[in-house]
C-alpha cells in the first residue's frame, strides 16, 4: 500500500496540483498585464470539481461502471485529474483601449485566494500525516 494513494492524500495532492497550475496561469496574466490585446486566462474549476467528486466516489467504495469488454473505456485509467483542467479565456472586469483585459486588482484577488487555499491544503495534509503517525506509533508504556 502506498500512503500517497490513500483517498485523503491523493485528493489533497490533486487539489494542490490544481492550485499550483492555477498560480502559473495567474503569473502569466500578471506578466502580460500591459501586453496589447492580451486576454487573461483561468482554469476551469467546475471541471476539476466534477472530476474530484467522481474520484472521491470511487475511492470511498462507490459504484464504478463495470468493464465487460476490452473495448470499454477504463474510467480509472482516464482519471488523470492533473490533465483535466485546462486554461480558458477569462476576461476581467475591464478592457483597456489597447484590447488588454487584465485587471491587476482582480488578478491579485485570485492570487491570494489560490495561495490561501493552497496553504489550507498543506495544513490538512500535515494533519493527516500526523494522524497517520499517531496510529503507527507504538503505544507508550
Amino acid at each position, binding site marked *: 500500500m502506498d500512503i500517497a494513494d490513500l483517498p485523503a492524500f491523493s485528493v489533497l495532492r490533486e487539489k*494542490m*496540483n490544481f*492550485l*499550483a*497550475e492555477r*498560480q*502559473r*496561469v*495567474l*503569473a*502569466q496574466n*500578471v*506578466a*502580460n*498585464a*500591459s*501586453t*496589447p490585446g*492580451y486576454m487573461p486566462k483561468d482554469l476551469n474549476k467546475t471541471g476539476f470539481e466534477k472530476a474530484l467528486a467522481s474520484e472521491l466516489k470511487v475511492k470511498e467504495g462507490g459504484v464504478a461502471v463495470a468493464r465487460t469488454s476490452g473495448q470499454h473505456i477504463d474510467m480509472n485509467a482516464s482519471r488523470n485529474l492533473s490533465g483535466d483542467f485546462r486554461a480558458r479565456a477569462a476576461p476581467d472586469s475591464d478592457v483597456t483601449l489597447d484590447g488588454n483585459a487584465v485587471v*491587476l486588482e482582480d*488578478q*491579485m484577488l485570485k*492570487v*491570494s485566494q*489560490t*495561495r490561501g487555499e*493552497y*496553504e489550507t491544503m*498543506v495544513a490538512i*495534509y*500535515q494533519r493527516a*500525516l500526523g494522524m497517520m503517525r499517531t496510529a503507527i506509533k507504538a503505544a507508550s508504556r
Partner: protein
Amino acid sequence: MADLESASAIAASGLRVQAARMRIISENMANADSTAVEAGGDPYRRRSLAFKSYVDKELGGEAVKVFGTRSDPTPFKVKFDPANPGAAPDGFVKLPNVDPMIELVDMREAQRAYEANLNMIESTRSMRRSTLELLRR
C-alpha cells in the same frame, strides 16, 4: 512544484519587461528638453516600447518580452527662441515631443505592474515554502 517554479519564472519575465519600460520612460524624461545641436535640426524624439507575449516551451506558459522600441511620430513643438543654438534661421526652435504628464502616468503604471509581478513571486515562494514544510516535522 514544477508549476510553481514556472510561475516564478513567468513573473520574472514580467519584471524584466516593466524594468525595460521604466528605462525608456527615464530616457524620455531626461531628454524632455534636448534640442538639436546644429541650427534647424531635429530634437530628441520620444520613444516607446512594444511588448509581446510568447509561449515559452521551457516554462510551459506564456511569458512576455520586449520586441523593440518605436519612435513616436507625433510632431515636435516649436518655440520662438532665436538665441538657441538649435534655432532655424527664422528663429524658431523645435522642442522634443515628450509630454512629461504622459510619461508620469506611464511610469505609475509600470510601477504598479512591477509590484504586481513582485507580489506574484512573493506568494509563489510562500506556497513553495509551505510545501517544503511538509518534509520537516
